[in-house]
């Protein structure tokens, strides 16, 4: 028997093999159990995936947009020479703690410096300071009656500024910030 004859016989023999074989057990109950369950829509997973993709693209695009467009945070500019601007003070407004603290420092420094000055100069300085303090007291008294008067407020701020300028000149003190808590 040559190779071709052998292969012919092999194929012929293979054609005799059973094509129908009964399983050793009934496979239907398990199939029936599976197909009895409500079928999942085959569109749902695709829709869910599509929604997830859209969400992902949207989120990543948003993050990218913010990363590209977000401007750098503004660095606060420190104003070296603080200037008092015209401001409206209400009836409840009082001097801030920072101002009062600076005022105390100036006063103690001033007292020490005044001791070194001649009596004439010291008297002149104290007279000027008294004028300013009297002015401030009068303005504050007027503001109690008319707390929203812009002119009085302006005068008050200028009086504080002059008072401190004088004290600074006398004592060569470090510039301090005069503040009112509401400015």
């Amino acid at each position, binding site marked *: 028997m040559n190779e071709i004859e052998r292969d012919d016989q092999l194929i012929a023999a293979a054609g005799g093999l059973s094509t129908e074989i009964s399983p050793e057990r009934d496979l239907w109950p398990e199939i029936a159990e599976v*197909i009895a369950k409500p079928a999942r829509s085959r569109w749902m997973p695709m829709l869910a995936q599509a929604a997830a993709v859209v969400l992902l693209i949207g989120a990543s695009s948003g993050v990218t947009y913010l990363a590209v467009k977000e401007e750098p945070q503004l660095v606060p500019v420190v104003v070296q020479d603080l200037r008092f601007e015209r401001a409206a003070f209400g009836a409840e407004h009082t001097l801030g703690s920072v101002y009062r603290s600076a005022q105390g420092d100036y006063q103690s420094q001033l007292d020490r410096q005044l001791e070194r000055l001649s009596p004439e100069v010291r008297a002149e300085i104290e007279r000027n300071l008294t004028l300013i303090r009297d002015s401030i007291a009068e303005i504050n008294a007027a503001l109690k009656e008319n707390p929203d008067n812009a002119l009085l407020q302006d005068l008050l701020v200028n009086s504080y500024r002059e008072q401190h300028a004088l004290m600074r000149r006398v004592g060569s003190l470090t510039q301090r910030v005069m503040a009112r808590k509401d400015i």
Partner: protein
Amino acid sequence: MEALLTAPVSDYSPRMVALNTPERTDEADWIARAQRSDARAFESLYRMHIDKVYGLCLRMTGNVAEAEDCAQEAFIQAWNKLDRFRGDSAFATWLHRIAVNSVLGRMRKSKRETERIQVAAEMPSSPASVADSGELRDLADAVDRLPQGARHVFVLHAVYGYSHEEAGKMLGIAAGTSKAQLHRARRLLAQQLEEQGFEA
């Protein structure tokens, strides 16, 4: 040898799809009802085709448990895809394609293929060979020991009568590859059977 490898398709007509007229009438009715989600009609289709589907699964896997799983999966898939069956081919052929896909899918996932070959080699008689009589059992055992690619082509082409084009389409390979695998299968089978003193 070359003549066998290039044998006309008509030499191997499919053996699985022939149904007599009364059965076809019933089958068409069951299909129509099953397409309307009639589980009882689908059970009738199952009873009608289970031996063919299970036989194919057993021949291709050579393992009872795998074959049972594949057959069940094939019918579940068929139920889920039933609305897409338009009758362009015989229902049995359509089921066979699903069953082959089920087998291939499980084979890809399963790491038991190597174990299966070893077990088959140690077994005096494979489960599939039980269905065969006499000297054909030796051939069935030898088929079970074939490597996966050669075995699948041999089963579809030589046992079930599909052409190389049909077998290749089912297995996702070219017709030429199917022919090459058949040649390999014949050579390996001849060697095995010669060692066993088998005469066709």
